[in-house]
């Protein structure tokens, strides 16, 4: 089996609103896959169907070879789920929480190892109520990985992190991926998807709009580049499909360094925004709001 997740013709309707509309998607075993899309695009619905929390109206779904809707306990043993922020752990310490959670898995990670991986060793015996937002979120991740999952779902894991905490967190995710864990990441941060994901899928209005590596998404690699420089006290820019030729010509003309030279291609964010633009400004107000959780 090369696919960790296989979705064919998935459909889910709330009233008259099609939250997921005939979605096809594969996530390969061992890859980090990021699902992007505006609020209400169907991301959460799709992920919750994959996690076995929601029923579907039509389509075939296979997660680690099993239909999540009627998945046995043994299937949960191979899945790790990091939900959007949850509470209820204030009165316990991270070590107590993890030690208890580890007991329901068949081959759990050592609790000290998980605390170390998530950078919580120093806080292991403090009440959770005293943890910072980032530390609290890392405890959520610790709970997601304590069972040594083959597949990890991460739902907006770094919302509210400061930049350093986010970098640290990315390191953790990369090390998990390096060890062979398949990761399905939903995020609103495009730099996060760009740093972590092997492939990204963009969905809007319940459909898959684009699917590629972060570098190639939406034809970014072949898109026109913008060459920009300073000349005569003002900023000059030129859009071109042959930026190397353009820069060589400039270098020859300036006989050396070109002042303020930059060569840029559309960022992932630019590409993403242009992809979803037709779906976000649509008259349907439902598309712009989150489906009630």
């Amino acid at each position, binding site marked *: 089996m090369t696919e960790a997740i296989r979705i064919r013709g998935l459909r889910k309707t709330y009233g008259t609103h099609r939250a997921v509309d005939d979605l096809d998607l594969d996530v390969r075993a061992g890859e980090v896959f990021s699902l992007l899309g505006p609020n209400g695009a169907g991301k959460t619905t799709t992920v*919750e169907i994959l*996690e076995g*929390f*929601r*029923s579907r109206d039509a389509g075939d779904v296979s997660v680690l070879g099993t239909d999540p809707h009627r998945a046995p*306990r*043994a299937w*949960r*043993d191979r*899945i790790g*789920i990091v*939900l*959007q*922020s*949850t*509470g*209820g*752990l204030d*009165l*316990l310490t991270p070590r*107590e929480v993890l030690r*208890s*959670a580890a*007991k*329901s*898995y*068949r081959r759990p990670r050592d609790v000290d190892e998980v605390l170390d991986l998530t950078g919580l060793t120093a806080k292991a015996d403090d*009440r959770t109520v005293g943890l910072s937002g980032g530390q609290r979120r890392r405890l959520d991740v610790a*709970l997601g990985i304590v*069972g040594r999952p083959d597949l990890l779902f991460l739902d907006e894991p770094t919302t509210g992190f400061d930049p350093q905490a986010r970098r640290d967190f990315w390191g953790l995710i990369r090390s998990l991926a390096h060890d062979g864990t398949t990761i399905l990441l939903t995020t609103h941060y495009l730099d996060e998807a760009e740093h972590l994901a092997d492939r990204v899928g963009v969905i809007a209005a319940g459909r898959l709009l684009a699917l590629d590596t972060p570098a190639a998404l939406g034809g970014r690699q072949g898109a026109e580049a913008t060459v920009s420089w300073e000349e005569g006290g003002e900023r000059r820019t030129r859009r071109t499909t042959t930026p190397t030729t353009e820069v060589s010509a400039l270098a020859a003309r300036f006989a050396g360094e070109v002042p303020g030279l930059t060569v840029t291609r559309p960022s992932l964010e630019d590409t993403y925004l242009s992809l979803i633009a037709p779906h976000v400004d649509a008259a349907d107000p439902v598309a712009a709001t989150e489906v*009630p*959780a």
Partner: protein
Amino acid sequence: MTTLALGLDRTAVELRMYSREKESVFFSFLFPILLLALFSTVFGAQFEDGGSQMSASRFFLPGMIAAGVLLTSFQTMALSVATERDDGSLKRLRATPMPPVAYFLGKVGLVAVTSLAQLVLLLAVARLVYDVPMPTGADRWAVFAGVFALGVLSGTVLGVAYSSLATSRAIGAVVIGPILVLQFISGVYIGWDSIPGWLQQVAALFPLKWIAQGMRSVFYPEGMVGLEMAGSWETGRTLLVLAAWSVVGLVLCVTTFRWTKRGSV
């Protein structure tokens, strides 16, 4: 690990959380004991009700036991399950391979340990500090044990079922309001015979009145039986009503329990 072992681990986790929450320790665990001490101090050794004289401690002890059962079972369950559903704890547990039964075993373990500990403390204070006579005879103790066990069981399952009625933001008012009213009309704070007949009829629909009555039947002198609604202790009916409520509660639990908040399917 087996489901039973996971249930025991959940019990340990639940007890740890319960004991660290000062509000729950004070308002549900110690509350009946503090009230017994308060009533005993205020009303003293010669308390008269319906022509029969006994110490205030002896008069209020059955009611306080009943209130304790209600608080540690029904109130604790309703509040904690509603909160855990609302803050995502239940969903998080559902995402693990832990069998759902282990979660409920943990809750049952929590209620069993706290209600028994509360009962022992309450009886010890009543006996040692206020000199309340303890029941005599195996048959009285058997009734006592039966009423207590069925009271705790019905309170637990009804509390879990009741938790589905409100979000955690409102659950405090939704639970504590009715509980307070129920305590006043069920003969916990006010002598049962002082309550108007129609209110007695209302109270008789709910388990608390029967728990209090069952406890009076083992702690009161036999002469007090005349103050009861039916002129007898109605031991058989008491056990039957509590058993019926337990079954109803269990059915409601099974049919209405949700792991996630309303609005998510």
